[in-house]
C-alpha cells in the first residue's frame, strides 16, 4: 500500500502503477497517460493483471471498453472481485455503450467517453486520484470509534490513543481499510507481513490477540474470527 504524501502534482503517483486495457494500449491513450506523468502497464486480461501486479498492488486501472467491451468489463470485474479490490477504476466507453454503465456501478469509479479529449481524460484521472494527492481523505481511516492516521502512524479508539507496535498497526490498518471482508491467515501474512516473512501463519493469530487485548474487552469483537477461514474486521456486509 503506497500512501505517499507529497504536495500535489502527479509526482506522488511516481511509485504507483496503473493497469491499462487493452494491450497494447492505443497510442493516443498511451501518450495521454505518459504526458500526465502516470506510470502504467498494459494488460490483456484479469489473469494477466493478477500476474503482473506490483507488490504493493495496482494503484488503479484505466479500462477502454469500446472495442472489446466483453473483455473490458470482465477485467473490471476481476479487479474488483479480489481479496483486496483495486480502487480507482476508470472505464472508457463510446456513446452507444452508455447503457452498459447501468447496473455496473460497482465495477468502476469514474468514466470517460470515447473518442476522448486528452485534457478531459487527464482531468478525470486527476479527480479520481485527488484524494491520494492531497492527502485530505485517504490519510484517515475511520470505523466506529477507531481512527487511524496514515500520515502520522497514530491510532486512537474513542478518542484514546492506542499504543501499537509497527506490525499491529499495519495489520489493523489493512483490516480497517477493508471492513466486512474475510481474510485468510495466508492473505494477511502476504499482504501485511510480505512473502519473505518466515514466522508462520500463527503470527497472524498472535497479533490479532494482541490487537483485541489493546482494543479492550468490550471492543475485542471488532475483529471477528471466522471459523476455519480467517478474520473479519467490523460487520459482515451481509448482516443486518
Amino acid at each position, binding site marked *: 500500500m503506497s500512501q505517499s504524501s507529497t504536495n500535489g502534482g502527479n509526482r506522488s503517483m511516481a511509485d504507483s502503477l496503473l493497469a491499462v486495457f487493452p494491450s497494447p494500449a492505443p497510442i493516443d491513450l498511451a501518450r495521454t497517460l505518459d504526458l500526465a506523468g502516470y506510470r502504467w502497464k498494459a494488460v490483456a486480461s484479469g489473469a494477466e493483471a493478477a500476474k503482473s501486479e506490483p507488490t504493493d498492488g495496482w494503484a488503479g486501472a484505466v479500462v477502454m471498453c469500446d472495442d472489446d467491451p466483453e473483455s473490458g468489463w470482465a477485467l473490471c470485474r476481476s479487479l474488483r472481485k479480489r481479496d483486496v479490490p483495486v480502487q480507482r477504476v476508470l472505464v472508457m466507453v463510446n456513446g452507444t455503450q452508455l447503457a452498459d454503465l447501468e447496473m455496473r456501478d460497482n465495477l468502476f469509479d469514474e468514466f470517460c467517453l470515447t473518442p476522448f479529449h486528452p485534457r478531459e481524460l487527464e482531468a478525470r484521472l486527476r479527480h479520481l486520484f485527488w484524494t491520494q494527492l492531497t492527502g485530505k481523505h485517504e490519510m484517515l481511516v475511520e470505523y466506529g470509534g477507531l481512527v487511524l492516521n496514515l500520515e502520522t*502512524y497514530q491510532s486512537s479508539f474513542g478518542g484514546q490513543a492506542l*499504543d501499537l507496535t509497527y506490525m499491529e498497526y499495519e495489520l489493523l490498518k489493512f483490516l480497517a481499510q477493508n471492513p466486512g471482508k474475510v481474510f485468510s491467515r495466508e492473505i494477511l501474512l502476504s499482504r501485511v507481513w510480505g512473502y519473505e516473512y518466515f*514466522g*508462520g501463519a500463527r503470527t497472524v*493469530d498472535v497479533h490479532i490477540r494482541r490487537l483485541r487485548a489493546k482494543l479492550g474487552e468490550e471492543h475485542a469483537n471488532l475483529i471477528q474470527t471466522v471459523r476455519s477461514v480467517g478474520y473479519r474486521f467490523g460487520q459482515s456486509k451481509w448482516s443486518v
Partner: protein
Amino acid sequence: MNEQQRDYVLRTVEERGIRLVRLWFTDVLGNLKSFAISPAEMENALNDGMSFDGSSIDGYSRVQESDVLAIPDANTFEVLPWVDAKGAEARVFCDIARLDGTPFDGDPRQVLRRNLESARKKGYSFYIAPDIEYFYFAPPVAGQQPVLLDEGGFFDLTSTDIASSLRKETIRTLETMSIPVEYSFHEDAPSQHEIDLRHTDALAMADSVMTFRFVVKEIAALHNVHATFMPKPLENIQGSGMHLHLSLFTGEDNAFHSADDPYNLSPTAKHFMAGLLRHAAEITAVTNQTVNSYKRLVPGFEAPVHISWARNNRSGLVRVPIPKRQNESATRLEYRSPDPACNPYLAFSVILAAGMRGIEEQYELPTEADANLFEMDDEMLAKLGIAQLPQSLSEALTVMEGSSLVAEALGDHIFEWFLRNKRDEWRDYKTHISQFELGRYLRST
C-alpha cells in the same frame, strides 16, 4: 528493518512526545539491562546502533574488545503505559552486536535467534506459552523472613485483597504492552499468584517474559509491595515455577498434532519429548539456575523431581495436556521444571536444542509413567528406568559441563562464562553456615 518500520518508530516518538527511549537488553544471568537515549538519537540508533561499554554487563566482558553495539529491534518498540503524558517514555529491545555488526555471542537474545534460525531451516517455528508463578510480600528487610500479604487459598475471591487488585492492574498493563493474558489466579500458597500468557513465537515470548517480570515488580513497587520470582521463598510452601507449554509449527499446522494418535501426538512431538527427557539433566542448570531453584524441585509440592512423562500426572517432568474441543493448534507439551528466575532466552534455547536433537536422531519415547512417582521407592523407579533431575546446582553444573548439546546451543562464550559464574555461586553457598546447621549441630555436637 524496512524504512516504513523506522518511520513508524520515529514518527511515534515525535507524535507522542516521547522524552526518553529505553534500550532494553539482557545479561547472561537474565537480568534486564537498560540505557536511555534522547529522541534525537533515536534515528541514529535505528540506523547504526548505539555503542556502549559491555564490560560492566554480567557475561559480556571480554579481555580486549569491550565496546559493543545495541541495535534496536524496531518491531518491539512500545510506548510505556505507566509514565504520565508529560514525560512519556518508550522502550525497545535490542540485539547486541560487535562493532563490525556481527552478532555478539555473549548476548542471550542472539543465542536464541541462532537456535530459532536453525529450527527454522528445518521448517519449524517454536511457540511457547508460560505459566508464571510469583509471590507478593511486604518490602523485604535484609536477613528477615518474607512477610506474607494475604492468607488466601486457591482461587480465593476476596474483593478487598490488595494482591488481587495488583494482579488486575498488572494484567491491564501487560495487555497494553502486547502481552495477552490467558488466565490469572491466586495460587495454592498464600501470597502466591499465577499469570498464564498466550502463546507466541519463542523470541517474542522471551521478550515478553522479561517485560512481564519488570511490569509485575514495577506495579507492586508502586504500591509498596515486593514481588519476587525467587523459586522457593518459603520453606514447606510450594515454590514458583514457570511451566512452559511448547509446540512446533510448520506454517499454519501444529507439527505436534496427529489425529491418528490416542494422545493426538505426532511422531515429531514424541521425538521432541524424547529429546527433552534424554537431555533434561544437561539443561537443568540453565532452566533452574540458582542455588534456591533446587529447593523447589523436591517431592510433595507438584514440582517435578523425576525425568518422566505422562498425560495427566503432575509429578512428571513433561505433561501432555488434553486440548479443549479437539483444537489442533492447542496440542502441546508442558515442560514443568523451569522456574521464573531463569534467563528465558537461554532456557528456551536449550529446551529447543534438546527437543530438536530428539527429532533429528528420532529418539524413542520411553513408556508413560502415569503412577504417582512420589510414592515409589528407588528400586521401583530404577526398574522403570526413571532417573531424577539434578539435586543441586552443583550437580546440575557437573552434568551440563559434559554436555556438547548445551555447549553448542549456548555457544562457547556463554557456556564457559555461565559455568564459571555458577561455580562461584555454588562455592559462596557452600561456605555459608545456615540456620539449619546452627539449629541442628550447635548444641548437639
